[in-house]
């Protein structure tokens, strides 16, 4: 599945391990939130790099104490219509100041990528868009009415600086 980060296709070095599956010998593994919380100490001593995958109902606040040790957080969109991941991303980026990779996985559609990016995602794992689609999607609007997790300033503020 193509993985797109910062307008480039990147290789995926991470492996997601479902909650009931044993860990293999991969160096970079992604765990569900509860498993991560239960096993993080034990895994840290094994020298594996750890990432977390959040399900829509997960509370990202639980990750807050460990954000420094995480290189990757995946937010799963099992159905594209379920928009909880947008709030999880905003919380992680803006309130908890997470700076590592934030990856959207699951049903990631071309026409959601702009809002995902604005909410704080920098990486998109998608079968529904190629690199040029993603770049086009990110370019569709030159302005925004709200501040979000990207660098754009809100129109409300821009007007006053004219």
């Amino acid at each position, binding site marked *: 599945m193509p993985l797109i980060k910062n307008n480039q296709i990147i290789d995926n070095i991470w492996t997601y391990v479902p909650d009931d599956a044993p860990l293999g010998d991969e160096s970079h593994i992604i765990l569900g939130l509860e498993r991560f919380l239960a096993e993080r100490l034990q895994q840290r001593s094994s020298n594996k790099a750890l990432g977390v995958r959040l399900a829509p109902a997960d509370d990202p606040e639980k990750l807050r104490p460990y954000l420094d040790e995480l290189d990757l957080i995946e937010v799963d969109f099992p159905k594209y219509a379920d928009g909880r991941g947008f709030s999880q991303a905003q919380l992680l980026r803006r309130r908890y100041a997470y700076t590592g990779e934030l990856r959207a996985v699951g049903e990631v559609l071309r026409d959601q990528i702009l809002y995902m990016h604005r909410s704080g995602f920098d990486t998109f794992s998608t079968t529904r868009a190629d690199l040029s689609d993603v770049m086009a999607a990110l370019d569709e609007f030159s*302005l925004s009415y709200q501040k979000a997790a990207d660098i754009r300033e809100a129109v409300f*503020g821009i007007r006053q600086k004219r």
Partner: protein
Amino acid sequence: MYRYDEFDAALVNERVSQFRGQVARRIEGSLPEDEFKPLRLQNGVYLQMHAYMLRVAIPYGQLGSAQLRRLAEISEKYDRGYGHFTTRQNIQFNWVELKDIPDVLQDLADVEMHAIQTSGNCIRNVTSDHFAGATADELMDPRPWCEIIRQWSTFHPEFAFLPRKFKIAVTAAAHDRAAIRVHDIGLHMKQQDGTTGFEVHVGGGQGRTPVIAAKVNDFVPESEILDYLEAVMRVYNRFGRRDNKYKARIKILVSETGAEEFSRLVDAEYAAQSAHEKIDLPGDEIERITAYFKGPKLPTRPLESTAFNDARVADPDFDEWAAVNLHPHKQAGYTSVTVSLKPIGGLAGDATTDQMMVIADLAEAFGHDDIRVSHAQNIVLPHIAIDDLHAIYQQLQRAGLATANESLITDMIVCPGLDYCNLANARSIPVGQDIQKVFADPAYQRDIGKLHINISGCINACGHHHVGHIGILGVDRKGQEFYQISLGGRADEKAAIGEIAGKALSQEEIPAAIKQIIETYRSHRTSKDERFIDTLERIGHAPFKEAIYAAD
């Protein structure tokens, strides 16, 4: 009224290009219908039984003449010569072809209009008082805040895939004409110690589970309101139910969580916002937007108009119309005119291409270019000199727009029902028309006074039957169309859900039953000044129920 600056214009034009691309991908096949659906909905495009329908936003119900003319042109070119004004102050067109919709949206963008977020599980068009900025009974004009909320909610990246649709209404008048207590969020503007702010109501709604909103905050100052709204939206986006479409509205979250716990969650989310998360709306920006709504400079006029008084004596139909369709203006010598889209035997909220053109011309000639769409699906010309009323009336009359029934018994909200809607249990339109015929006599209607009858063809309640003083709901009884009457609903500041009066009646029985209700009211009212809803409140439902079912 608000005018786009280069930023607003750029965003709306970029939206048209974006949707043009999406439609092209849909037609060429790379975008499947399932994935296209949320995109078209967020541009107001519905797929109905036989064709697409386009719902165009009329932010807080305000239009200029050029905009209404553009809508009229669209109705002629793409629909079949009609536009349908909705209970959310929008307009809908049927029979528009998908391939043409990007062009229609461009035509709209050229006159500073759009169809953004008029459908889908996102924050919808903000609605307000149709007399805003003109009425004598408002604390201040709510429209600047409607516009600020419109901008904040437009393309909000976090709240485009909510559990369900989300509707916000704002009023600043003592008498609530915007039905804020049956909205997902209702804002009532207030002033406290010299500060402007909002009383916040959350979780009202109609549909199969009607609920009156809970008051979750007595006063949020204007400087904090957008941040507070963000907190409400985030709590809803995170915790609203997504397992069942019928339990996904915020009203269910509020009632299942409990209003107190819900407002605690909102307060906690609000308190957790750090400084850099705050929206920080510059005070100058509030002033800039407010300045657009100053309203026309109306020359001073005498309180009494001889021309008007003479015309009322000479033209009894005009006299009847003037007694009913005018609303007090804040400035002497002026009034707000309701142009009824509820002719006896017509379709509620429908206007023809020509009628739209006539209204646009009148607004330009006499009305300072200001036109409103009301929540009751009528048109309002808010700033009219009393001297000009007779001339306006005569033109309205020629266009079939002079029905004298504003807020009277024949000014009903009626959903499309079985004639047009595939979800319906029963027809609504003929039921409404049959009732209209019973009460068509203008003198009789006026004698009855203000009264709202609302009719829905099924439990989805698009005709707002729960909040009609008299509500009528179409139900299916073993394949037969029946109608359930409810009494005592209201959508104003004393909002209440109507109570079912008794067993459902057949279509033939309904007009007589309504007549019985009305005659019971007329025999019990203390005077003509006591409205139906007040008599009902005073004497209770029992005499009315007896009257309806007496024949059994």
